Every structure is written in structure tokens, then in C-alpha cells.
């Protein structure tokens, strides 16, 4: 049966996505580790299917400011992939790459922004490469877009884009452990529903 909204997925389908999340996040962590030249591990990734309000509370409230790198997917799978970079992760990246840290996102200049975009892009690409290799599909990615603003508005982008179809957000992700510190990392994969069905069928778990 084709899924019409995210919350209709059964446990086998969610487990499959969790596995994808695990492999994708693992690849993203490896890419991050290579860029930073330090060990990066991941905690157990989770797949969450949440309403918008729940997702906002989970990530820390609507008005909290955060950096987001967004890439649009097309090809065999359409959707949006979002990397939400909290200040802890931002500072690990900036300290390692540029030898500096920031107190507030307002201190980000051109160079720092482009470092964050690049890291976000590499993590997203590593995730999607793992996913497309696993499912045997071709996915094209756009050039990454970057914004620093209230995270409520950033999370609303995938909601609005697919809001006509679903009231739920799917987030796949876990925390990175870097220098013995746990750094919250949120990679959000929001496929459109047609693509989600296609993906589950390709992976052999959709029962139709």
C-alpha cells in the first residue's frame, strides 16, 4: 500500500529508514572527520516523524537562531535535505578550519559562512551518496543555500514545500561525538511522498 502521509509508515518501513539514516549519518561523520582531521563518531541515529510544533520543541524552540544549509534533491528522488548547525558544531568547524570561534552568529563573515556551507554540503552529499548507492537510484543535488535565522522559519521550509501533502516532518539524524564531546547534529531528510514510496519499494520493504 502506498503511503499517503509520513505517519502511516509501519515499523518495518521506519526501521529501514533508520538503517538508511545510520549509514547516511555514518558517511556524513566520516566526511566531517576527514575535513576536520579529527575523530568523529556518531551516537545511535533516530528517525522521528513529528508534527511541526513537536519538531520545533525537539530542536530547541522557534526563535532560537541557527545556521541551516539546504540542498534540494531531484532525479529519482525529490525532496529537501537540511543540515541544521548549532553553535557548538559551528565552533568546532571554525576552530579546526580557521582557528577561531564565535559567540554569536552575527560574527560570521564571508569566510566563515563559506566554511559552514562547505561542511554542510559535504555532509549532505555524503549522506545522499550512501543513500543512493544503497537503493541503486540517481539523485541530483542543487548548489547549497545558506541562511542564519530563527530555526522555526528554517524548519518551515520543508514543511511549506510539502505541506500540501503532509503535516509531518521526518528527521533522520543523531549526535556527533567530537573530541569526546557530544555535539547535537540534525540532518533532515524530507523526501516528497512519491519519492518516499519509490525509495521504500526500491529497498524492498513496501508491501504492494
Amino acid at each position, binding site marked *: 500500500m502506498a503511503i499517503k502521509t509520513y505517519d502511516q509508515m509501519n515499523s518495518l518501513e521506519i526501521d529501514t529508514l533508520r538503517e538508511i539514516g545510520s549509514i547516511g549519518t555514518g558517511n556524513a561523520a566520516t566526511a566531517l572527520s576527514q575535513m576536520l582531521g579529527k575523530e568523529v563518531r556518531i551516537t545511535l541515529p533516530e528517525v522521528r516523524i513529528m508534527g511541526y510544533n513537536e519538531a520545533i520543541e525537539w530542536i530547541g524552540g522557534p526563535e532560537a537562531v541557527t545556521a*541551516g544549509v*539546504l540542498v534540494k534533491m531531484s532525479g529519482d528522488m525529490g525532496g529537501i535535505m537540511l543540515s541544521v548547525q548549532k553553535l557548538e558544531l559551528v565552533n568546532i568547524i571554525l576552530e579546526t578550519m580557521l582557528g577561531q570561534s564565535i559567540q554569536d552568529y552575527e560574527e560570521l563573515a564571508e569566510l566563515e559562512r563559506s566554511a559552514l556551507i562547505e561542511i554542510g554540503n559535504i555532509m549532505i552529499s555524503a549522506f545522499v551518496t550512501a543513500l543512493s548507492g544503497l537503493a541503486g537510484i540517481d539523485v541530483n543535488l542543487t548548489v547549497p543555500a545558506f*541562511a542564519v*535565522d*530563527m530555526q*522555526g*522559519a*528554517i524548519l518551515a521550509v520543508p514543511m*511549506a514545500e510539502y*505541506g500540501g501533502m503532509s503535516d509531518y516532518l521526518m528527521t533522520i539524524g543523531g549526535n556527533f561525538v567530537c573530541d569526546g564531546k557530544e555535539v547535537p547534529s540534525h540532518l533532515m531528510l524530507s523526501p516528497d511522498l512519491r519519492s518516499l514510496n519509490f525509495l521504500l519499494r526500491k529497498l524492498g520493504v513496501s508491501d504492494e
Partner: protein
Amino acid sequence: MKMAQGEGVLVTYALGSCIGLCFHDPRLRLGALLHIMLPINMETGRTHPLKYADTGIRETLKQMEARGAMRSRMTVKIAGGAKMFEIAGGSGLGNIGQRNIESVNAILKRENIRLLGQEVGGKVARTLFFDVGSGQGCVRSYGQKDIFF
């Protein structure tokens, strides 16, 4: 959608491409704050009318009129409709804000509601406060001064 009468401040947080609409009937000091996400309702079951500009505005007007509000006195202020991400090559993403603005304007005109002020477009997220007593709106954005309108 939230409604209040007499006094009180209604608030909706972090409007990106979404639009917040402050409906006000000054004589009754009745105010409603609606938060819409998409321009047109194409849901088959219509389970979430308030999520869309067209059905959301009509539903809000209906509920305000049920409490005695008159369209001839009613005013609206709107905020939101930003474009959060600029994607090179323009793949359709990010136009939602602009489409929301156009849709809200068209529907308000059709419903004969006076648009008194707007803080729309641009690239910033906005938190919108609405004082139902005075009808004043206030927009708060990251790294900017508050705007009263």
C-alpha cells in the same frame, strides 16, 4: 488561529515564508491572529482549513463575525512571506513566500477587508506580536530593531 477581546497580546513565532494576519475590529476591540502556510487549499478532505490563505481567511472572518465583528470596520495587518533560502538556478523553491503574499492580498480584496499595513518579503524570519486592544502590530527579527506597524 487565536482570538482575544478587550486586551491582550497575541503572538506567532518565526514566520518564514508563512504569513501572519492580524484581524482587528476597533469598536469591539476584538482581534484575531491567523498564521497561514500555503496560498491555496487543495486538500481533498479539507481537514486543515487554517493552514491556507483562502480557507484560513474565510474561516477567521466567519468566527469574528460570529462574535459581532463587522467587515466595514475591520482592518488587517500582515507580516511574513520571506524567502529563507536562495537556491542558485531557481528551482521553484522559495517562491512560496511571494505566492502567499499575492494570495493573501487577492483574497482580502475579494472579501472587502482593508489592508492597513504590511511587513512582508525580504529574507528574514519574523515573530509577530499583535495587541488586540490598540490594533498595533510589532515585528521582531534576528539582529534587527523591532518594527511597529
